[in-house]
């Protein structure tokens, strides 16, 4: 192997730039946030050391915090549920569509649009019918007047209206990932299976699904992490309102830090967010590890 001949020095020289970047851009800010989370500080004036009281306030005495965490986790589940659908569409595309690349690219299109553009677009779709809201007008048209509502202003449904937009936007992203994963499976495997009598769904069941698992895993991790730190979509469409009904962890952190000027408390929330993301990644890896092991 060539690898053995490379000296440790060369290795470290090559790793160093990325390591420095990683430390400066990721590790240092997290530590700084951890430090500030121990203070009561408005970001400008004097810092008052309060130990872990920000954390105890966050975990026990903030009526908005746990519902926000709940919404974030619920969103992560929805995003995870989306991946099998994306896989299914990718399989169908590979099997039945002659030139699937065009379709895959069109599904991918929303991903490259700015979230602000998407947010504004969907805001006008969700508008009341009297103001030209597409969705409500469509419901009116097919005779479902009772279903119409002010989607973003009704605290019961607004969070789901937001989730839907995000899921819609990222469906194409996951289809692309799964699709590429399927393309990378060697045709020879399928041909061999065909000779053995495994065709159609059977081939998918015993070849496509097991071989696409690593890619599936990446999709899962991306979806979960992405939804845990969802921010821009919520900010553009509702800013956490009405009355905290669409508040998620990251918007709560932002509102506390910059609007209420509770810098220390906001830092505590951000540390919670970091830990939550790490936990989710570890958990998912464990889960897939065991399922991969069982397949071997």
């Amino acid at each position, binding site marked *: 192997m060539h690898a053995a001949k490379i000296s440790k020095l060369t290795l470290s020289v090559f790793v160093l730039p990325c390591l420095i970047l990683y430390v400066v851009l990721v590790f240092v800010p997290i530590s700084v946030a951890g430090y500030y989370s121990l203070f009561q500080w408005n*970001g*400008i004036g*004097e810092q008052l050391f309060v130990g872990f009281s920000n954390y105890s306030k966050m975990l026990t005495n903030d009526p908005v915090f746990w519902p926000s965490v709940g919404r974030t986790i619920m969103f992560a589940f929805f995003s995870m549920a989306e991946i099998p659908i994306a896989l299914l569409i990718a399989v169908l595309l590979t099997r039945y569509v002659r030139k699937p690349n065009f379709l895959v690219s069109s599904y991918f299109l929303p991903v490259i649009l700015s979230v602000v553009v998407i947010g504004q677009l969907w805001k006008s779709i969700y508008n009341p019918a009297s103001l030209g809201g597409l969705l409500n007008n469509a419901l009116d048209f097919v005779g479902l007047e009772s279903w119409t509502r002010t989607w973003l*202003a009704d605290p019961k449904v607004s969070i789901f209206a937001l989730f839907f937009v995000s899921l819609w936007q990222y469906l194409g992203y996951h289809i692309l990932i799964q699709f590429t994963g399927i393309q990378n499976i060697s045709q020879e495997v399928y041909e061999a299976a065909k000779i053995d009598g495994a065709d159609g769904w059977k081939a998918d069941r015993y070849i496509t699904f097991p071989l696409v698992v690593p890619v599936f895993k990446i999709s899962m991790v991306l979806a979960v992490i992405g939804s845990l730190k969802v921010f821009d979509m919520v900010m553009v469409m509702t800013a956490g*309102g009405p*009355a905290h009904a669409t508040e998620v962890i990251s918007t709560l952190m932002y509102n506390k830090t910059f609007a209420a000027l509770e810098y220390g408390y906001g830092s505590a929330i951000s540390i919670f967010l970091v830990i939550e993301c790490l936990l989710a990644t570890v958990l998912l890896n464990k889960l897939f590890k065991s399922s991969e092991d069982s397949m071997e």
Partner: protein
Amino acid sequence: MKQAKRKSVLLFMFCLILVLTACSGNNGTTEQPDTTKKEVEPSKKQITLTFQNHYPDATDVQHKVMQQITDDYMAANPHIKVEVDSLNIDQQKIKLKTQAASNDMPDITVVNAAAQMAPFVEGGKLASLNDILERDGLGESFHSGILDYYTFDDNVYALPDGNNIAVIYYNKELFEQAGVAIPATYDDLIKAAETFNSKKIIPMVVGEKETWTGSYFFMNILLRLAGPGYLNDVQNKTKDFMDPAFIESVAKFRQFIEAKGFQEGATSYDYDSAESLFTSGQAAMYFMGTWATGAMDEADVKGKVGVFPFPTVDGKGDPNEYMLGPGTGFALAANSEHLEEAKDFLHYFMTNYPKVSFDFKNAVGVAQVVQGDFVQAGYSQLAIDVLDIFKQVKGGDIAFDNTMDPSTTQTHLNSIQNLFVSSIPPEDTAREHQNAFAANNQ
């Protein structure tokens, strides 16, 4: 293997580029002062001042006024270069907070009045402006009382460009069409809302995604029922939020919402989209600060808009008392390297502000006395009407966020937004306020 090698080479080059660009960026900023030093005249040093403001829209008249005065100043003082950093208001607020935290504030910046600028003053971030107010009578050019909102311990820390009041703009055509008279009482206002709704006209617009807009309307009810200075009394703990006047104000506000006084889905509208509902002629009324006057004169509704003061509530309150809007003020960083020059610039800026604003037809709601004949200068009828209202102002009160600490303010803004979507007893809303206030003002 070959492919892997190529990949690693690419990766290495990518890292290299990142590192190199990072370094060159640093060099650029450190070398800049050297190059400017070479051009220094023997007598005067070349100086650069940074002027942060929130007039980013170059087509906006506010921006034009700001740019004109800045350019004039640079022409008169060739050794001083004023770099303008225009951001929208939310971005500017956050940028300034970050800069203040890292002691890196721009020489000239803008801050909000009263309670909102208090953290900056208490943190020693702003320079006192008493000396430039005394120079050439600049202090006397301001309307009486307006500087109080920027004064802490007898030191003025910011100079406002605007001085506004909240009024109700109304669409004369829609009022005529629905046969509605100008409401003189709050009950009239609710009845008007019902009439407009029966004619499928939006009675009033509010951009409640930006929570201060609803709060501003609510505060005007509170001003009628509790009188001016109520929040100050709360702050001094001679009154609290469980006061009957406060609870009644919440109930009254809720009454207007229940009468569908505001447009459907109000909490998802931001300031601009709400305003455009009115300026495009789809809504009958719009409660806003007089700074919105300029926008009316440039929109579809031009010439159809009138103004009236907020009505009395249950026969209480004086319609000549208004929600006052001491706007943002220009402030100077205390640790600026060129504090003297910055003071000189700000003095020049504020001295010329009324005249240049007048020339740009933007002199409605200026914090300083404006010389000139508005009618002759071709100001719109609406602008003249607003100026007439200004003459009748007998005091009033300022917005919630200008009085209370930021944390209590956030609780207030959210519980007002909550009134739009759920029917909780007014006492609960009041208690929510009181708890937040108690927690933040021990």
